[in-house]
């Protein structure tokens, strides 16, 4: 497929898009929280990737490459919207024990509830949670991507997780 794209064949573009676009779109959507902007970013990321596909060294890692392009564009878009990834490392001592959730509670939850809880997070928290939980990016790497200290990433991640659990617990108690 990548070779077809390098040769400029539309079929190759379509096959690569069909295979990876869904996962990349959702990764961007989780960061942006906005359908229209996510769509634009994914389109732009694929265009950039297809244009520069000749420079791709590891052809087996096309998905990771495009996803990284798309996520970087998403973060740039958030920055343009004046969103600041706060470097509040002085507040890092969030007690892990405060974040108390059992596996049982998780299994009782619906996927949609968790999605909603994540979507309701403030932009900064949602970005960190999405990158760490879904894209499995380490906290240091997230710190580099967002231009903040990794300890800040860690503390914000715990706070975000606490907010999610609180929302989930409320959901479980009230059964709404």
């Amino acid at each position, binding site marked *: 497929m990548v070779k077809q794209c390098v040769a400029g064949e*539309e079929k190759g573009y379509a096959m690569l898009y*069909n295979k990876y*676009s*869904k996962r990349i779109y959702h990764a961007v959507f989780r960061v942006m929280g906005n359908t229209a902007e996510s769509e634009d970013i994914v*389109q*732009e990321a694929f265009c950039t990737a297809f244009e520069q596909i000749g420079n791709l060294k590891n052809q087996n890692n096309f998905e990771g490459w495009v996803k990284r392009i798309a996520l970087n564009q998403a973060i740039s878009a958030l920055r343009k919207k004046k969103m600041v990834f706060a470097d509040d490392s002085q507040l890092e001592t969030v007690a892990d024990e405060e974040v108390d959730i059992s*596996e049982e509670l998780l299994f009782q939850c619906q996927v949609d509830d968790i999605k909603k809880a994540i979507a309701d997070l403030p932009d900064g928290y949602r970005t960190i949670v999405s990158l760490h*939980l879904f894209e499995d990016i380490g906290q240091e790497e997230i710190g580099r991507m967002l231009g903040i200290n990794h300890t800040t990433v860690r503390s914000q991640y715990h706070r975000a997780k606490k907010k999610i659990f609180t929302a989930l617990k409320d959901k479980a108690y009230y059964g709404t």
Partner: protein
Amino acid sequence: MERDFFKQYIQEHKDAFENEALPPNMLGNILGNLKEREELKLQAQNKRRLTYTWLAVACSLFLALGAYLFVSQETKELAQPNTQIATNIPNAIEQPIVSKNEEAPIIENTAVKSTKQFAAHQPTVNPHQAIYDGLADSLSVASRLDAIIKAGTLTSLNDKLKTELCRAFDNDGNDNVRLAALEVLSKFSNDKYIQEQLMAGLSKEKDPVVQLELIKIMGNNSNPETTNKLIAMANNPFTVEAVKEQVYYALLTNNN
């Protein structure tokens, strides 16, 4: 490292989190964008190429103009008498004050003497020597042509010059030299020797252009030998058609 149940849960159920459909026609937009960018790239490349071409043309013009100005400036400087050459004019030397009685005879005597000396030492120059030298220059067609042109400006030809010109007309390897010699000889075609030589040329000359010129010159000649030679030319199977036509015309218009 602590165990993150939440992360584990998310990773295990990741597909369930990504079950929403994609916005429609994203692929179409991507392919359209790619084509647009491709076209823009091509346009930009063409523009750049065009710009470089114009730049090259402008540079060439600039250099040519610069060279022209430089050369014309040099020429002007050489043409002006009061530039570099003027600086070499020797300073006027004050002449010693001489009394009136002494002055006149001294100057006159020297002037007369020097003139006489100059005339006495002048070698006797043959005015036609340059023409002979030019005709003898077998290496340069230009020199021979130049010599023939000079001969053409003369009002009369001496015997040696006639011989040399006739030799050039007969034997020169260059058609243009032969033609030029013929043109000069035609001016003196009343001369008996020249006439004989030209008549002989009617049978000797093989070049059609020279033949045509020769027939034009000799066509009006009433000499029966000329007529015979013209008839022979007309009957010669190797004579070019155009030459034959010129021969017929000459024979028809010849009053004799």
